């Protein structure tokens, strides 16, 4: 699929970017799941002109507006990103669809989700890992479990079957696409549907205990919550993220790489819808004018 502007994230920042970009008569494709936005749950009282309003309501109306200007929402996460030699940007979505774009707007938000179970912090580096791609080599011939409900967990689980003697995947609220789920199953991943309760071990990981009483004897626990992080996407596009995983932008929401823009929570605090849509407007407009050669 070819698109002029590819927006990653379908919360307030990404939707506003899509509205402004598509009004400049460029093609716009939006990835991400609206329900995953930090604004999708809460009600708010501090947003201009609406009074008391639910974030979900704003998002639903925003998507309708963006679609009416021509933006296409694919409702899937990005699982890999890269820069093409011709200045294009290339992505793969959950279902394997390839997207090629001329400009990118990173509007993923930032992950606030931590597993927060006993043993997680204490055994970090002693069997607990947050990066399967980084640490797969250290678990050759050992037993591992992947923890997470979305695409990153699915991809990590399938990949780990090439290294580990036994790969399990704990997903208590499965949101990974059917395609990724089937790939993991075909690779021999054993799937558990109960929530993790504790990571057990003294000096190294020995087991993962689940809420339903299951105890999975284990050498490694890979925590891969949510979709691919903004920091990873940025790195793949040659944008160096900050240490707190935010992405530095200038007043035009441009990153250090021409054609790559960022907006919303991913650029730092305040984590407010008002700031997200303000930056979304700037990022979307500038991404469109970049595509048209006006920047």
């Amino acid at each position, binding site marked *: 699929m070819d698109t002029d502007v590819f927006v990653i994230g379908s919360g307030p920042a990404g939707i506003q970017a899509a509205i402004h970009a598509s009004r400049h008569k460029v093609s716009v494709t939006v990835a991400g799941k609206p329900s995953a936005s930090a604004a999708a749950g809460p009600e708010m009282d501090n947003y201009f002109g609406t009074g008391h309003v639910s974030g979900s309501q704003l998002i639903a109306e925003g998507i309708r507006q963006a679609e009416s200007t021509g933006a296409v929402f694919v409702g899937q996460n990005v699982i890999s990103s890269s820069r093409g030699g011709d200045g294009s940007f290339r992505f793969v979505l959950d279902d394997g669809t390839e997207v090629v774009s001329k400009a990118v707007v990173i509007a993923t938000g930032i992950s606030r989700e931590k597993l927060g179970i006993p043993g997680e912090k204490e055994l*970090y580096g002693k069997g607990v890992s947050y990066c399967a*791609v*980084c*640490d797969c080599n*250290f*678990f050759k011939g050992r037993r591992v479990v992947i923890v997470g409900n979305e695409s990153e967990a699915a991809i990590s689980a399938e990949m780990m079957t090439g290294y580990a003697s036994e790969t399990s995947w704990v997903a208590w609220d499965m949101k990974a696409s059917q395609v990724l789920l089937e790939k993991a199953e075909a690779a021999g991943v054993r799937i558990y549907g109960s929530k993790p309760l504790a990571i057990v071990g003294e000096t190294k990981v020995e087991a993962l205990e689940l809420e339903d009483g299951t105890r999975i004897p284990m050498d*490694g626990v890979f925590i891969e919550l949510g979709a691919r992080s903004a920091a990873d996407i940025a790195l793949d596009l040659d944008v*160096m993220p900050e240490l707190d995983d935010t992405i530095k932008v200038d007043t035009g929401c441009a990153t250090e790489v021409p054609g790559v823009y960022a907006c919303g929570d991913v650029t730092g605090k305040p984590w407010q819808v008002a700031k997200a849509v303000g930056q979304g407007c700037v990022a979307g407009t500038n991404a469109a004018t970049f595509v048209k050669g006006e920047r």
Partner: protein
Amino acid sequence: MVTELNESNFDSFVESNHIAIIDCWAPWCGPCRRMGPIIEEVANDLAGKAGVAKLNTDENQAIAVRFNINAIPTLLVFKDNVLVDALVGLRPKEDILAYVSGL
């Protein structure tokens, strides 16, 4: 440029530095790529005070096994040829400098 270590020079590097800090990394590891420039700065700031080097764990798996590395980036910290700590995960330059000054 930070020295790259391997099987042939690892031990001699650790032995020849009162304090040695080894950044264990691999090319496909995102957090390691972010650690790279930080380690370059740490090496400059600690020039003459500590030896700072890098170890590609993919190419030197025996050393990774020897020091029980299970996650990268990991900073192996040696003092007088004895491993005193393994700091796991991405961290800012200031934290590394503060840690070294406390050794």
